[in-house]
Structure formats: C-alpha cells, structure tokens
C-alpha cells in the first residue's frame, strides 16, 4: 500500500508533483472554453470565425469598447450592480433577523419554516413568472428598481437564512446571556455582540447570492424594463445583430461578466465554500 493512498493532505514529494500537475491540467481544461470566450473578445472582429482558428493575434480592446458603448449595455451593467447589491444587502439584513430568531428562540415550526424557505428555491422559475408578472402589474412595480429589489430580496432570502442560521448556531448563547445580564437590550446583543461574530457568514451569504442575482435572467427580463434591465438581459437581447450572432459582442460581455466574478472567487474562495454548505463547514477550501 503506497503512502499516498490515504485521505490526508499529501507530503510525499513525487505524489505532490503528480497531483499539482493533475490539478493544474484539470483547472486549465475546465477554463479553456472561458479562455476561448476571452480570446474571442480580444480578437479583431473579422477573424472570429476563421478556420483554422487564429491563436496568435494582436489583441484589441475595440470589441470591449464597442460592447460597452452599444446601446444601453453600460446602463444595464450599472442596473445589475444597483439592484443586485441593494437586494442582497437587504436580504442579508432581514435574513439575519430571522436566522437569529430561528437560532435563539426556536419558534414553533422552525424546522418546517426553514424547509419551506429552502423549497421555494427549487420551483422552476418559469412556473412563477406569470403570477409575478400579473402581481407586479397590479402593484405597479413593473420596470421599477423597487420591484426588482423586492423580488431579488426574496430570491436571496432562503439561502441567506440557511447560511446565517448555521453561523449563529455556532456562536455560543453565553454571549447573549452575558449581555442580557449586564443589561443589554436585544438589538444591542444582536448587532453588537452576535453580528460581528458571524462576519464570515455575512460575506458568504453575500458572495453566494450576488452570484445568483447577478446571473438571474428570466425574472429580470419579465419584470424589468428598459429602465431596469440587467446585464444578462442586455446580453440576451443583443446576441444577434441583423439576424446573425454577434460573437464579438457576446464574447466581450461574457468577458466583462466573468472578470468581476473571477475576482470574487479568487478573493472570497473560502466564503464560496462556506456558503454552499450553509455554514456547516467553515474551513479553508
């Protein structure tokens, strides 16, 4: 039995080199299609469909500039940033309150409510669009930031509650009790004592949901409008120019799209892991 055949981080040099090679190869293989998109964005427009494909070319930023200056692209980007960040922050705030309540007071039906919350994320989006569309028309919320923010707040609540509850469960109730004994009021305990201790959970919930909301297309498309469309809609509605797919445009938007997300993943890798497991794992990836 070789030493490497066990489930602990390896120290053996040969194994390490093999593993490093395997990991990097895998990473690059998976990234290749994305790399192709980025390369396409940097290629001169008229060489995109060349066969054999142009691998060596003088990169140009023209496509990116064109994409950003096309129609409303820039404002779609800004819209995306506005509604996704406000909605996710709002969701985290209300989710924190709820998660605190679930964790500390365990009101009747806690398990059931948590289950209900989670199950909503599993309904096919198309099923809900029409009721929402009609609801938004009745409430006059269509194509308004208020409407989108309300929607995406709900959209972000289930996972936020789950993640934050996991984290608050991990903070000893001794803090609450010590605070109570010294005469602290509940809001003080929640925001001054507990909240700072679940910072990782807050970041995880933020990272996790911002990726979801940033990528959400269908509802933005149906509930939004010219004032409030986000970048996925911007991309979707401008794929074709004159009947043909504008590959440079798609690639440029794809590139502009992936960059912030890649940065988020790079800098908040740990939190991505934490978010995906609802706070049950807090370690390093």
């Amino acid at each position, binding site marked *: 039995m070789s030493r490497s055949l066990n489930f602990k981080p390896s120290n053996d040099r040969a194994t390490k080199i093999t593993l490093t090679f395997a990991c990097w190869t895998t990473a690059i293989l998976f990234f290749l299609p994305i790399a192709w998109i980025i390369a396409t964005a940097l290629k001169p427009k008229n060489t995109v469909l060349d066969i054999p494909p142009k691998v060596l070319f003088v990169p140009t930023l023209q496509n990116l500039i064109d994409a950003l200056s096309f129609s409303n692209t820039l404002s779609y980007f800004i819209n995306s940033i506005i509604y996704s960040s406000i909605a996710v922050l709002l969701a985290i705030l209300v989710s924190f309150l709820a998660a605190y309540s679930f964790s500390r007071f365990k009101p009747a039906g806690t398990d059931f409510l948590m289950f209900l919350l989670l199950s909503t994320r599993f309904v096919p989006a198309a099923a809900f669009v029409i009721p929402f569309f009609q609801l938004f028309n009745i409430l006059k919320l269509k194509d308004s930031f208020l409407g989108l923010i309300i929607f995406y707040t709900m959209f972000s609540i289930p996972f936020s509650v789950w993640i934050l509850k996991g984290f608050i469960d991990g903070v000893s109730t001794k803090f609450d009790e010590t605070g109570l004994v010294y005469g602290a009021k509940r809001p003080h305990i929640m925001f001054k004592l507990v909240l700072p201790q679940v910072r990782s959970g807050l970041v995880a919930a933020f990272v996790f949901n911002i990726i979801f909301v940033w990528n959400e297309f269908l509802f933005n498309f149906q509930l939004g409008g010219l004032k409030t469309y986000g970048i996925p809609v911007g991309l979707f509605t401008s794929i074709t120019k004159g*009947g043909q797919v504008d590959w440079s445009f798609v690639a440029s938007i794809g590139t502009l799209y992936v960059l912030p997300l890649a940065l988020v993943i790079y800098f908040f890798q740990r939190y991505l892991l934490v978010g995906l497991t609802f706070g049950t794992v807090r370690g390093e990836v």
Partner: protein
Amino acid sequence: MKADDVFAANPELDIEPFSSLVKNTYQVYPDGSGIRWGFPQMPDTQGVFLRKDMLEDPKEQAAFKQKTGKDLPSTYEVLSNIEFDDLVEIIEFFHRPAKGMYGTALMYSKEYDFFSCAYYPFAYSTGGKIWDPETNNVYGILNSPENEKAMEQFVGLKKYQPANFAAFGIGDMIDLFTQGKAFSAWQWLAVGKFMSSDKVPADKVISIPLPKWKGNLIGAMGGQPWVINAFNDDDHMRVAVDVLKWWYTKETQDKFIKENGGLPWSAEGAANPEYLEVAHYVKPFLYMLEEGRSQDFWHLPEYAEMLAVQQAAFNGYATGQVKTAKEALEYAAAKQQQILYKAGRTETPPPDNVDSLKI
C-alpha cells in the same frame, strides 16, 4: 387596439401598400374581415443569395458548360426565372465540400418558424396546402402526399450543405455565406445587408427570387408589423402614434432604406427608382411581394403552439429522429387539429390516436 381607429384620427398614417400581401399579412385580423389592427413596419419575403463572382468566373462557366452542356447563368434576368431543378444543378456544380465550399444552405432549425418558413415555398409551389382557413381544419390537409413530396425535396437538399444543416437558422446561414463557405443561401431578403462581409463583399453577391417549380412560385411571408397595446395609457398612446408618424416620414424611410439596408413596401416607395438601385435584394423583394407570390400561414392566437408542434416534428425529420416526412406531417397535423379542436376553432376532432402520437 384597432389600427382603423388610429387611421381615422390620423389619416396621414394610412399609407397605401405596394400589394395586398402587406395588408393581409400585417394588418388584417381575422382573415378576410378587413378590420385592421397592425401597421406595416418591415415586410419581408424570401429569395436566394448567390455568389455572383463564382457565377461570372469564366473558368467556372467553361467547366459548367463542359459538364452539363448548358450555359451558366449569371444575370438577374435569367436567374430570376430559374426553375428549381436548374438551380439545383448549379448548386451541385459548386458543391465542393473538400475545399470547404458548400453548394447551398437553407433553414431547418427547430428555432421559432425557421424550418416551416423555409419549407412552405416547396409545399405551396407544388400545390400543397397547410390548412383550410374556412373550416380551420389541418388534419388531412397538411399531411397530404404533395406536402410529403415537397418536404422530401426540401430536406433532400441537405446533400449540398454542411453536416449541421438541421440547426441552420438565419444567423448560421449568414455566417456560412459571409465567411465564403457557401455558394448560395436561401434567405430572407430583409437581411440582405448582412449577407456580405469583408471576405465576401456586396459586389460579389447577387440575390434572386426563389426558383420556380414548373413555373409556379409561392413563397412564405416574413417580417413584422407595428401594433399598439390597448392597455396603454393616454401618454403612451400619444407616444406610440408619434413613433408611427415618425416612422412613416419620407426622411425616416429614406434613412431606413438607403443607409440601413431596409426595404420599401408602400406603393410610393416601391415606385421610387432610387430605392430600387440601393441594393441588389430590393428587386427580388418587390417581385416576391407581388400579388399572390407569397403567402402567410395561420393568423390564429394558437399559432405559437401549432408552430412549436410542427417545428419539432419537421426538424425531427431533418435530423433523422423521425424516419419519414409522412410521419412528421402526420404528427404535426394531428396535434394541430387537436389544438384547434380544443380551442373551439373547428368541429372536426383530431384522430383518435392523437394522444399516443410521438415524434
């Protein structure tokens, strides 16, 4: 809301179209009622784009002559009256897949109405019908032997196309043609401006109407109208009418046709010699727009559902999932009959086995 009401208040918008096709396709509902709901925006008809430079190449002409004993036509006058079989002969001649040049490209995609619209001229021109607008019946009409033969002929052209022909839509054909990989493409004429590139510049392209089947030709209609949403408030309504007024001004139409590759459709625009000279695809467009030369399909609220059914079945035949054209047509006809029957548009029920039909 009714366009007639808008015309009543703004008579200057009521522009005379070049042919009744425009009115019947984009304006009137229900068929034959004369009640107008829409405003013509961008009518479209079908044609074939060809590589003029290849047709005019003396070497090719000589080779063609040697191979077939016929002259290789290269002028609009001759090509615009070409018979289907003759066009296929030329396509076959230029089909050189080993050199990365395909003879032609047509639309077989499942997307939207791509397959259907590309296929309809084959059916219409050989005597096929897709339904009976009087009784709203489909079954027994769509699945006719004529349509079956037409579909076999239509899909039979795959031998001159790339392997993924069955996914072809407007964009794929533009890419193929403008990258210099196809000799010809059966395409909507309204995208004519995009059927050239720096690899295949506009002066190397010629467009013609669809070919004729023993002298007969009926194409499908494309394009779209404007319509005004009846739920608009007064402000939106005013703006909508203002947009229409702007759209129909001479300046806007000039700009649309001369600079943006648009097409004229009004009696006045069609008569404008300037417009005719703007691009090669204006002539075939107007030709196809002549009375009776093109035909639209069902004007019914259920059209989307009916379309989805037949697109899946027809595309299935193109890809080999459905073995025969007969099966594809049978499936589509039965399902469409069911849709219309359920919607209360016809008295005739679908065949009994309709629920168990599968592609």
